[in-house]
């Protein structure tokens, strides 16, 4: 595939890694924010070819992982209603809420459907006028335009049996929260290429400056990742801390303005709880008042269940980069993808699952 396979060249990857080794004079801790990048790093063994002095810290950029239990519990209640067709991306189905997951609700009779696009959910609503179609609208900035557009289309076409349970989260406030944390070890960030492809990267200048932290917009293929790491290390080694774009074929400073406009039309900023991390001010989007008719939480009377804090799972620390998955005592023992204790073990983008699936017994 053009624009994909070129960036997977093994030989060039090794050469890039080797060069990173050569320029690297001290240990550095770099966080890739995006779960897609975590997945790619582990699956392709990028971490294995990097010099030992570079530690990749896996960030909270898996939307499945950071969706709070309270949202999942609401989703479970809605999905169990007989009139509801509950639509979600497949990854969410196995994420544990307080006492169940969507798969179990489906097993007990809930009409839960996996969709591949929010438009599929709108289509279902159009085709099932006597049912209530609820779409679980989660994700980062990459997914927000699609979800916003689905709501906008539903309104334009008066599809009023469609609604969304929104739990959108934003990357820049999360980066700030990590940097503000007293336990922070992160010295540089790979910014998520797809997020920036929508939002641009202008908003990162202020952060790079405020925290004196290099931020490099990075893609997902081995060469893209290694190039992003190379540039990050270059900044670190030379004491720089600015924003750099290592993914220019997809990302521009301004981003996709049409997409941003749709987001602005439908959503508004809001405080958001992040699973394992806690509340981050203004770190999410919710429907604005023009679209509140499509808010599933208004339409269905769902209880807010108190969140049971896990006594074993250290997914919060994993998500903040404080520990690596295999440093959790439950990793690979009580906690496996078959039996995940935390969301980070569910999604293949979750750091725990990525470690388990691709590297649990490998020496690193």
């Amino acid at each position, binding site marked *: 595939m053009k624009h994909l396979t070129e960036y997977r060249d093994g030989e060039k990857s090794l050469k890039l890694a080797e060069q990173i080794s050569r320029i690297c004079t001290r240990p550095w801790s770099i966080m890739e924010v995006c779960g897609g990048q975590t997945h790619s790093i582990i699956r392709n063994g990028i971490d294995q070819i990097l010099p030992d002095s570079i530690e990749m810290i896996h960030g909270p950029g898996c939307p499945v992982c950071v969706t709070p239990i309270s949202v999942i519990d609401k989703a479970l209640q809605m999905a169990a209603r007989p009139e509801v067709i509950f639509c979600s991306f497949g990854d969410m189905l196995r994420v544990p809420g307080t*006492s169940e997951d969507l*798969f179990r609700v489906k097993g007990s009779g809930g009409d839960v459907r996996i969709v591949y696009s929010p438009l599929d959910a709108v289509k279902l609503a159009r085709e099932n006028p006597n049912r209530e179609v609820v779409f679980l609208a989660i994700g980062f900035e990459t997914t927000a335009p699609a979800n916003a557009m689905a709501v906008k289309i539903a309104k334009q076409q008066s599809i009023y049996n469609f609604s969304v349970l929104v739990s959108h989260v934003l990357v820049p406030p999360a980066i700030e929260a990590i940097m503000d944390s007293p336990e922070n070890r992160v010295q540089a960030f790979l910014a998520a290429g797809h997020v920036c492809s929508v939002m641009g990267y202008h908003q990162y200048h202020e952060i790079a400056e405020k925290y004196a932290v290099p931020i490099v917009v990075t893609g997902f293929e081995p060469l893209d990742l290694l190039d992003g790491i190379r540039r990050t290390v270059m900044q670190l080694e030379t004491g720089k801390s600015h924003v750099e774009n290592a993914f220019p074929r997809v990302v521009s400073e301004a981003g996709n303005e049409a997409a941003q406009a749709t987001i602005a039309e439908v959503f508004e900023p809001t405080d958001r709880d992040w699973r394992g991390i806690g509340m981050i001010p203004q770190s999410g989007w919710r429907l604005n008042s023009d679209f509140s008719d499509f808010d599933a939480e208004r339409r269905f009377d769902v209880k807010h269940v108190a969140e049971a804090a*896990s006594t*074993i799972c250290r997914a919060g620390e994993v998500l903040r980069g404080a520990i690596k998955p295999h440093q959790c005592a439950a990793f690979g023992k009580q906690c496996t993808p078959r039996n995940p204790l935390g969301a980070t073990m569910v999604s293949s983008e979750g750091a725990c699952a990525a470690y388990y699936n691709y590297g649990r017994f490998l020496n690193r």
Partner: protein
Amino acid sequence: MTQSPQCPIPLRDYPNVILAHGGGGKLSAELIEHVFAPAFANEHVTLLGDSTTLSLPGQRIAVSTDSFVVQPLFFPGGSIGHLAVNGTVNDLAMSGSKPLYLTAGFIIEEGLPVEKLIRIANDMGAAAKQVGVSIIAGDTKVVERECGDGCYINTSGIGVLPTNLHIASNQAKPGDVVIISGTVGDHGVAIMSVREGLSFESQIESDCASLAGLVQVMIDTSPNIHVLRDPTRGGVAMSLNEIAADSGCGIELDDASIPIKEAVRSACEFLGLDPLLVANEGKLIAIVSAVDADRLLETMKLHPLGQDAAIIGRVVEDAHHLVVARTAVGTKRIVSIPIGEQLPRIC
């Protein structure tokens, strides 16, 4: 499938079957390991691999297959699990063979309580053990809700045939005697009694049982058994009509001699059914030379499954291959085959 006591997220295991249980991955393997393997435990069983290899004590074999789609899954006197084993065992036994091995293919509807699946598997294991057959290979598929009905089971079986036997539905000869091993219609009426929209209360239980043991004592008693048949779907009427057609003869029954439980007769009366059309799952029809009939009947009556055995008719010459019953008033009526049932899924 035990829960780690400290597990902070309860109910990690699935109380109902989910699609992933049929995906061929970890959950499928767990279902086999925790549900089927313990229930079917035997030396041959390989429920995960591609196939099972066996050595047979003979080269003449009988093979049979049946799918079981009964509703409800549990009914008075048995379950789909009992049926699935006994049904195929009985089909094998009707050739005079000794049933040895069964395969089991499950098609489970998403949402089936795992607890029910365990009961079904245990019923199968118990039925297999009782008759001495081994369930040697299995398969599990899970289908979406509304694409199944709890659980369907296919069993296929292999039996080994003695070389001296030639029992088949085309072997009936004029003059032969028709014996039934017991009361007629119990299974069908038991199922109907618990059928939604039709339900009535009764003490009637399905006769679901393995006939292999009874067949064994029968062939030990008489070398002149020409036909054996278990009158399941379509009942005695269907079986006899098929035998008449295959053997090119007629069959004359005597209505009064056919053993029918009082409650079964009442239920049929009230449902407008002919008991001869109602399914049985633990009865056989034997067609035997007249010379051996009485001796065979006596042997049958000594077996627990043959206590109510009776001679119910005779094979006659008839160019039309009709099955005819003598009524109480001495007249004859044709015993026709059903067109198609309007009460499906009795097995």
